[in-house]
């Protein structure tokens, strides 16, 4: 790629008039080579040289944005695309309710907005870094393609946040944009800002659980930013949400297909007891109790991302009109919450209680509740697969107090059913509830690449529908053979 004479209006598809916005264009031009370097250093070279069947957004029109074609990832057209402006849009909540949405950053909220954008932006490259080696163990070309689609779109989401920083936050915005490429997942000196984005993604089940549970937190955060009174932010994340749906899809169907392969193998071998773990593992599939442990782990790590249950920061963000609730427009209340209450869990005298607190301070809790509901849906659909197969087993979402590092539950040990237990008891039984080293090693032992079109590793079932309606043996990635 010619980095010096990049034709920006064609290299960066955009609907923000970049070519006439010299200042931002210059800032992006300075940032772009660093981004390309980051990308090129990240993912193994033979994948960079492979042709991947990706969808690229070329316009925000519903008919123009999902163009499928073979692309080499470094040539992917990372664009800056905002959902179309809604004429006459007003601020949907808080003390500025009903006032025209801001087209520029209001001075008094500048720092708060910048911080939200930086935190959101920091997660995007973080997850690509966590997933960088997964291509080497892809269970199929189909899954490899889905991984890379997630990766390039997270990359685009970084672009989207960098654009906002460079366009609206002057010099310190540009510095924050540069820092996004300096911090690195798992680094000792400059780690990513949120803990969950410094954990490794060592295997594909972890990746699917991550996209199902952790990306869903991202989706809820984006949903609340989509309500923002700062219109450019709202428009940016509304378009990102369309792409985020693919990540949810990868997670839900990835876990679902893992479960399906286990059920099929058990039925074929005539095993009815889901706890006959050694026998089931011998079939080259992941037993359901281990999948439950993975669920427990990723679900609870993701719950921590919602922060403190009661938070004045969250109250301020809502009140100032910067961050709304999930589907704010569909909630039937005054959207100011000055006199409302909301039930929040707390711990008093060693007991888990629910108490009503001012609704404004419980914004995080409410978003987390919406998240729990949203996340339960897919778990229910996984259980339907099990019910259909005749195996007696059901996945359960652990109690929200289980295995928590942040919020009211961080001070106590809670078992998956929601009973407070002693630290000794927890330590003794932890291996029943969370994946052990041995579980991890077993899953790792199944991570063998399967690169033949239409073929899948033993532990995962083929998808029911191809991407872009392609037939089963479609070559989603044309691997570069060096």
């Amino acid at each position, binding site marked *: 790629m010619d980095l010096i004479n990049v034709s920006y209006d064609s290299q960066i598809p955009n609907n923000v008039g970049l070519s006439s916005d010299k200042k931002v264009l210059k800032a992006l031009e300075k940032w772009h080579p660093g981004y390309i370097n980051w990308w090129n250093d990240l993912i193994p070279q033979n994948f960079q040289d492979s042709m991947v069947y990706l969808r690229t957004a070329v316009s925000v029109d519903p008919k123009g944005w999902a*163009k499928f074609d073979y692309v080499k990832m470094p040539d992917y057209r990372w664009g800056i695309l905002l959902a179309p402006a809604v004429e006459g849009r007003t601020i949907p909540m808080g003390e500025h309710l009903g006032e025209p949405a801001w087209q520029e950053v209001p001075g008094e909220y500048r720092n708060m907005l910048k911080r939200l954008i930086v935190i959101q932006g920091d997660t995007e490259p973080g997850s690509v870094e966590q997933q960088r080696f997964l291509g080497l163990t892809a269970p199929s070309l189909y899954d490899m393609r889905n991984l890379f689609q997630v990766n390039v779109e997270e990359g685009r989401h970084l672009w989207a946040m960098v654009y906002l920083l460079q366009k609206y936050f002057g010099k310190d915005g540009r510095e924050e944009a540069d820092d996004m490429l300096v911090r690195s997942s798992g680094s000792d000196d400059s780690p990513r800002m949120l803990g969950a984005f410094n954990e490794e993604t060592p295997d594909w089940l972890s990746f699917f659980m991550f996209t199902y549970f952790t990306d869903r937190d991202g989706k809820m955060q984006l949903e609340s930013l989509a309500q923002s009174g700062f219109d450019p932010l709202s428009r940016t994340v509304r378009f990102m949400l369309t792409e985020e749906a693919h990540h949810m899809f990868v997670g839900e169907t990835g876990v679902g297909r893992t479960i399906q392969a286990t059920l099929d193998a058990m039925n074929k071998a005539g095993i009815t007891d889901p706890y006959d773990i050694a026998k089931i593992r011998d079939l080259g599939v992941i037993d359901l109790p281990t999948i439950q442990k993975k669920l427990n782990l990723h679900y609870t790590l993701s719950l921590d991302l919602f922060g403190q249950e009661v938070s004045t920061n969250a109250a301020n963000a809502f009140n100032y009109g910067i961050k709304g609730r999930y589907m704010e427009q569909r909630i039937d209340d005054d959207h100011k919450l000055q006199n409302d209450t909301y039930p929040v869990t707390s711990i008093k005298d060693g007991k888990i209680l629910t108490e009503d607190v001012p609704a404004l301070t419980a914004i995080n809790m409410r978003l987390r509740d919406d998240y729990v509901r949203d996340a339960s*849906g897919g778990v229910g659909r996984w259980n339907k697969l099990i019910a259909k197969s005749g195996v007696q087993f059901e996945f359960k979402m652990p109690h929200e107090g289980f295995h928590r590092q942040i919020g009211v539950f961080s001070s106590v040990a809670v078992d998956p059913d929601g009973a407070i237990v002693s630290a000794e008891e927890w330590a003794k039984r932890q291996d029943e509830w969370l994946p052990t080293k041995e579980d991890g090693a077993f899953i790792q032992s199944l991570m063998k690449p399967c690169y033949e079109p239409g073929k899948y590793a033993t532990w995962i079932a083929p998808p029911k529908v191809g991407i872009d309606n392609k037939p089963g043996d479609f070559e989603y990635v044309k691997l570069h053979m060096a």
Partner: protein
Amino acid sequence: MNQPFKQHLIDPEICIRCYTCEMTCPIEAIVHNDDNVVVNADICNMCMDCISVCPTGSIDEWRVVNTAYTVEEQFGWEELPDQQDIVAATDGDNDQDDVITQLFAQAHAAAGGKAKAPATAAKPTINMYNLGKPATASVQGNYRLTDGDSDSDVRHIILDLGSLPFPVLEGQSVGIIPPGVDGDGNPHLPRLYSVSSPRDGERAGFNNLSLTVKRDEGGVCSNFICDLSKGDSVQLTGPFGATFLLPSDPAAHILMICTGTGSAPFRGMTMHRQREMPSVNDALSLVFGARSPRDLPYFGPLKKVPDAFLKKAFAFSRQNDTPKQYVQDKLREDADSVAALLKDPNGYIYVCGLKAMEVGVEEALSDIARSAGLEWTEVRDTMREDGRYHLETY
């Protein structure tokens, strides 16, 4: 509703309840409860905005029904109902689609069966613009391609789409709506023309496309187009065509056979390959027929493309001092390469031009196949089913 009609449904076994379709629907025809996301048939106007945003493919489900499934019925589904035994009636709104479908059916008729796109072709966008909602383009250029003293007037027309999304792939066609009304006082229907530029624009990175149009005496649309001047506005429909497309596979071997303005799609395909994989040699061959070099569109630029990148054979039927030659003669001259292509699982054949060329090409390919110990109709059917034999004649 007494007439059978197509109802839009969502497959509850595939859907992940991300509600992206619901957010995208401009008229709130999509709703959900705790179980399912469903389309309300009373509201849906089939604008298709929800189709491409769905990450799962669950949204592209249709059933022909006499009475629509209600929202409540759909909320209760765990799987889609089977299609009932009903024949769909065509209503007035679909007339235009039917006309286009018929045109393509006629154009592809001689291929011996239903056309299929190459497996690795990019996914085409079709029917984005129609008579009710046409796209407006402005003319960027209109150049005569044939010699001034040739009596055939073939034009290269460049249309600028401005900021309008109009994604086309090489081999697709667009409709041009000539202004005015026909003898019965009805507005003219669009005429179809193959796009002759590659997908990323006549000029790379620009939102423009080119057409190759021959002036037909008395032709309403061709005269309208050939007389256009820079800056004029043109109403477009389309894009159309979902099978006559280029494989993305660099290993594909492609034989293109054309006469006259049938060269349009091959110009686009060749340019696309030049831009995307300029170093892949010995993969493209072109057999091009015209009356004489003066009548052959793009003769000058074509000659400049290196033979290693694009092998070229020209057949001239009215050149002084030389015997008449047609494309089939050129195919026979190079029978060995053609036979090798017929046997190659990565071999593709494209034919585009006047109906009159069909018989000659078909005979030549049959003869070449026979000498190589193959049965042409079998080879043709296999290739067509594989998306490797494409014929478009008019």
